[in-house]
């Protein structure tokens, strides 16, 4: 019964794949995306079933027979489903459902330009590979699905084949992604040679000496760090995510980068139990750097999707700040809360970030532009997109009672209360970052929906039904997860306590002390009552519509009077320029010398980052071979 449940999304997605292969061009799109949405629903149900099931059933294991080769290694893979993977599958299901439904209408804009059947193929395969990454209990299957995920994502990013920018971004992504997965493969191979088995279960409780521990920590952190786009390994994300079709961007930013969080939690934290303090310090430091850097770069962007992509860097920083900080505090119960808050932020970020990308996609669908300098005034033409966009923007800014608030607040709070000087400094900077986030999204809202349009807006109406459904679904979740946040929070608390084998009751006691549901709901009630009373009082009278005040002249105000997106935060940028010099220094002192000295022979590419990652790929391959040789000789 249960075993078939784990396989059900896989079967469904394979049926979708077959449809995409058989049917021609546009006919393939609807069935494939419909089946993807059904598969996403089954994922959500499966995850909820696992998360709410009794704790006495720890793991559901099933076997997947794949005839890939004759060797014993590749014949049978075990799939397993525990609470950690179930939580991530829930996230994947939600994002996958929204972006599949959205895609049904959105991808039709490429009709006749690009191959829609190819899109359906890559998209279904992408979903399938991400699902496999989460359920695989086997090193080989993990590597295969990890690589499949990277490659299908590459094809989806480069979906607009005619665009030079998209192709270049996809190439950069592929190079960086490969250099990262090379490191992961290398460390998994080391683990295989040490344990002698490919099953994850055999890795549990593996006795590692200190050197191997630090080596693995380094490999995993850099490898998963590239996938998660932690600064300074983030360069691919702000280029690649905006170039993909919007619903794919939602899936990339909403979910794919979080597979790295899953990887870190699965391998370094749950299975291997590497030195928590050092690992935590590294992750938290990378996290806060990403948060500050990603968000302050986002502040300057004039391209709506690029702005959001930089925020993905920033928000993944928050997630790692929570997880890393929690690991540093480990035996302390506050640490468990911080890690759970980080994990909770994974779900929340997935919801609001995919919603943001979908709204940006709706604007592209109708207006055909994502340049914040020329957009504006869409609120009256696209009301539902506007409402979804503002809910998502307020949510990412951490505004109560939306979902971003709950997790951010808990991350900041648990770190501030820890009394650990480093973590307290990080948390105080995180408060600053949330102000940056809010400001940058006010700019997005203002320049897209509110202020004067520079482009003329005529005959613009709201997007087709599937897109509206997807947006409303996610907006609804933003509010629901925000108001009743203790439900998902309890799930994450239970999951994390299981990972750390911590006492759940003491965690629960602390969380009720730290946070009072009653207060939260009462304040909400107060807000609602006051708003209602006040609005009933005000709206008794009919509003009279008057023209905009034009300082007594007969002409309308010149549009140039307002601020363009480019000059929105000029003064702030000028005054606080030190945070923007980071990139400059990194390039001047680290990347440039490295590249100029060693990489003269790959000057066929024009981007500086590319050299570094070409180099990394080469080094990876070399090191993997070396490690393999050395280890086979030793073992």
């Amino acid at each position: 019964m249960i075993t078939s449940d784990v396989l059900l999304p896989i079967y469904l997605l394979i049926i979708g794949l077959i449809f995409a292969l058989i049917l021609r061009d546009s006919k393939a799109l609807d069935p494939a995306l419909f089946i993807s949405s059904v598969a996403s629903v089954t994922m959500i149900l499966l995850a909820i079933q696992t998360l709410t099931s009794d704790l006495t059933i720890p793991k559901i294991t099933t076997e997947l027979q794949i005839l890939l080769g004759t060797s014993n290694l590749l014949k049978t893979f075990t799939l397993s489903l525990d609470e950690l993977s179930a939580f991530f599958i829930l996230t994947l299901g939600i994002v996958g459902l929204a972006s599949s439904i959205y895609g049904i209408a959105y991808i039709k804009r490429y009709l006749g330009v690009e191959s829609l059947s190819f899109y359906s193929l890559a998209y279904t395969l992408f979903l399938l590979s991400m699902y496999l990454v989460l359920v695989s209990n086997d090193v080989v299957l993990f590597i295969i699905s990890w690589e499949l995920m990277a490659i299908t994502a590459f094809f989806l990013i480069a979906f607009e084949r005619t665009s030079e920018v998209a192709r270049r971004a996809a190439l950069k992504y592929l190079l960086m992604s490969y250099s990262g997965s090379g490191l992961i493969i290398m460390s998994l191979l080391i683990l295989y040679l040490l344990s002698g088995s490919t099953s994850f279960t055999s890795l549990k409780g593996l006795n590692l000496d200190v050197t191997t521990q630090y080596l693995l920590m380094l490999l995993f952190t850099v490898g998963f760090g590239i996938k998660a786009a932690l600064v300074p390994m983030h360069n691919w994300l702000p280029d690649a995510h905006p170039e993909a079709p919007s619903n794919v961007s939602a899936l990339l930013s909403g979910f794919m980068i979080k597979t790295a969080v899953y990887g870190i939690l699965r391998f370094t934290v749950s299975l291997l139990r590497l030195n928590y303090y050092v690992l935590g310090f590294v992750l938290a430091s990378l996290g806060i750097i990403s948060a500050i850097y990603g968000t302050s770069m986002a502040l300057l962007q004039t391209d709506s999707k690029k702005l959001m992509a930089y925020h993905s860097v920033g928000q993944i920083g928050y997630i790692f700040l929570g997880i890393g900080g929690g690991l540093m505090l480990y035996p302390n119960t506050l640490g468990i809360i911080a890690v759970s808050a980080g994990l909770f932020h994974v779900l929340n970020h997935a919801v609001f970030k995919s919603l943001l990308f979908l709204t940006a996609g709706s604007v592209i669908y109708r207006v055909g532009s994502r340049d914040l300098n020329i957009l504006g005034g869409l609120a009256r033409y696209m009301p539902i997109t506007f409402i979804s966009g503002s809910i998502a923007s307020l949510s990412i800014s951490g505004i109560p009672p939306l979902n971003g608030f709950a997790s951010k607040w808990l991350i900041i709070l648990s770190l501030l209360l820890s009394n650990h000087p480093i973590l307290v400094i990080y948390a105080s900077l995180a408060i600053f970052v949330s102000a940056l986030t809010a400001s940058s999204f006010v700019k997005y809202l203002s320049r897209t929906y509110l202020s004067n349009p520079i482009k003329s807006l005529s005959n613009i109406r709201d997007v087709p039904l599937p897109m509206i459904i997807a947006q409303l679904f996610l907006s609804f979740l933003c509010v629901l997860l925000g108001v009743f946040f203790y439900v998902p929070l309890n799930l994450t608390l239970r999951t994390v306590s299981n990972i750390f084998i911590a006492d759940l009751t003491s965690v629960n006691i602390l969380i009720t002390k730290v946070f009072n549901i009653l207060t939260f709901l009462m304040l909400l009630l107060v807000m609602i009552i006051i708003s209602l009373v006040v609005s009933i009082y005000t709206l008794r009278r009919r509003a009279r519509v008057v023209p905009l005040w034009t300082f007594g002249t007969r002409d309308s105000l010149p549009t140039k009077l307002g601020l363009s997106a480019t000059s929105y935060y000029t003064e702030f940028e000028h005054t606080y320029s030190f945070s923007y010099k980071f990139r400059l220094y990194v390039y001047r002192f680290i990347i440039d010398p490295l590249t100029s000295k060693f990489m003269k022979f790959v000057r066929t590419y024009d981007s500086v980052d590319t050299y570094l990652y070409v180099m990394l790929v080469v080094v990876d391959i070399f090191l993997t071979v070396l490690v393999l040789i050395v280890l086979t000789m030793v073992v």
Partner: protein
Amino acid sequence: MIGQYLSLVIMVLIITVLIPVLDGIERKFIRARIQSRVGPPILQTYYDLIKLFRKELLVPSTASKLFIIAPMLSFSTSVAALFIIPYTLSNPLSFEGDLILFIYLLIFSSITALLGGLSSGNPFAEVSSSRELSLLMASELLLGLSIAVIALKHSSLSLSKISSTPVITPSTVLAYITLLYYAFIKSARTPYDIAEAEPEIASGYLIEYSGPLLAFAILGNLVRRYLTTSFFVIVSLGPLISLITSVIPTPIKGLTNYVLILILSMLTYLVLGTASVIHGRYRVIHALDSVKKYTCIPIIALTLAIVGL
């Protein structure tokens, strides 16, 4: 239990009623006195608000629905934040970490007000929002760092706990000074009123508002001004009050605390008002520069706190 909540509601009501009067006192006895004018009557802010409430509801043709909702939402959020403050140095709604909730509510309140102004489609609102948010970002760094000091020194982020346990060290004193400065920035009074700047950008985000909506926007502003001031008073002077009133018997202790905090908040409010009258408005870049310069105070405080002072 219910009595506690009821008294909280009554205390909040009293303060909400007093806030416009406080503004009137500032206008009559501080502003007018320093500028050698006779000044308006103390209840002038009330007269203004009542007149605005009676007026017609005007909505510009380019505005979206947010234009109407935002000022009311902003007002109700700031009133909700009033409920978190421990007026008697304890609060039935208090919990570990209500300080962060308080700050987020404050940010929400000012951002919704801005979004409402932006949705009018007037370009001046845009200029104003850019200024306000730049100032918000700069001042939030200041606030975050001083909260870090408080968290390290008090090992708690509950307003009631912080306000009833005195911790006086060099680092906390510097953090309190920063909070006073933060209250000054957030009060949107003269040197830092770059977002409204009436002669410059015609009231900025309030430009299209009139009648009852303007009244709500003004009320929201006044409540926020009071909130930041009393935040400073609770965190820094609350411990002193608790020391003074510790000798008073329990039945009237709560009332004494309430009255003392109210008086101190009003005094601080008026002191900040005086400081604002003797300043001219900063230019945007100078406002940000000054905030950046004063960021060194909480940085020093945090360093001291980590060292153990």
